[in-house]
């Protein structure tokens, strides 16, 4: 009984934290819908794509493959390359799960591993209850899907100023996830600053800026997180503190 209540609490908490995600998704997926429309994809098709993929850059790339009438192998390779960062995210998430958690969650959770849901999930203290992710997905997936369908169906309807303002919503949320940690912990503060600085250099400097943003994210994540792990490994208790129940 207590367990069921716990799941419910986490589910509701997930819905609450999923609302800003849905808001931000709406703006981004709207643009995605417009791109799909230009590629000759119907609103229904675009909606299906959003509901099953939940991947912004990945979907833009997939639309390009379709528009170019490339092969299925190209589709698989493109999708793999653009979305490689999810391997890192899922690996990181695996360490927040309870070993005793029913296996089915390990098959359901990956349906909703997006940058944003991963972000809020890694923000959870201690063990992660999968129902938190499901709660977030309950609002975020419709936001993402409906935005795409609308964009594909009608094109630009939102006033430009509103659309522009909404375009930073997801980034604002990312800040809300990483800054509080950086405030409490000096290592994280340095880590976040260095990450932003290097990301800036990689996007601005000649030669380095030729690296695609997808590759840049993976490369910098692996290098910086590895360096931090080597220089400042975490001793047991930091993460181990606990986490009653599941």
């Amino acid at each position, binding site marked *: 009984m207590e367990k069921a209540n716990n799941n419910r609490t986490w589910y509701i908490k997930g819905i609450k934290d999923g609302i800003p995600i849905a808001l931000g998704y709406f703006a981004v997926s709207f643009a995605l819908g417009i791109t799909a429309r230009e590629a000759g994809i119907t609103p229904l098709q675009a909606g299906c794509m959003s509901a099953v993929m939940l991947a912004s850059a990945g979907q833009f790339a997939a639309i390009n493959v379709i528009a170019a009438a490339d092969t299925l192998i190209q*589709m698989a390779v493109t999708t793999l390359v653009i979305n490689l960062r999810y391997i890192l995210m899922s690996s990181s998430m695996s360490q927040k799960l309870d070993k005793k958690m029913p296996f089915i969650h390990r098959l359901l959770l990956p349906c909703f591993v997006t940058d944003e849901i991963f972000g809020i999930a890694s923000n959870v203290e201690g063990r992660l209850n999968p129902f938190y992710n499901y709660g977030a997905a309950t609002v975020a997936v419709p936001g993402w899907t409906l935005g795409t369908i609308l964009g594909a169906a009608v094109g630009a309807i939102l006033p430009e100023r509103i659309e522009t303002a909404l375009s930073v919503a997801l980034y604002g949320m990312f800040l809300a996830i990483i800054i509080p940690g950086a405030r409490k912990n000096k290592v994280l503060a340095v880590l976040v600053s260095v990450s932003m600085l290097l990301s800036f250099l990689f996007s601005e400097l000649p030669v380095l800026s030729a690296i695609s*943003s997808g590759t840049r994210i993976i490369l910098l994540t692996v290098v910086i997180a590895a360096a931090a792990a080597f220089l400042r490994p975490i001793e047991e208790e930091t993460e181990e503190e606990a986490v009653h129940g599941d």
Partner: protein
Amino acid sequence: MEINFYVYLLVAASTLYIIRMLPLTLIRRDIKNKYIRSFLYYVPFVTLAVMTFPAMLYATGSIVSGLAGFVIGVALAFFDGNLFRVALGSCLAVFITELIVK
């Protein structure tokens, strides 16, 4: 031969699912090695920081309003940390800056 949209989608979605699913199903125990654990613990901070900056500056089409959104977002996150309020604050900062600048 023309490939059906849904066949393309099936390939893309399956590839994506496998990428997301494999680590979660294969890594089922707590990793004991402190370096790997630390690496995985640091991953979200680095990834999200890299994705946010400088992309946020370019998201609005004007660096000034993008920067306003970023600065206000960081400040709000520093003192508050509520996802919704920070996201909304960033959006408002962009909105107001755009009103002033344009």
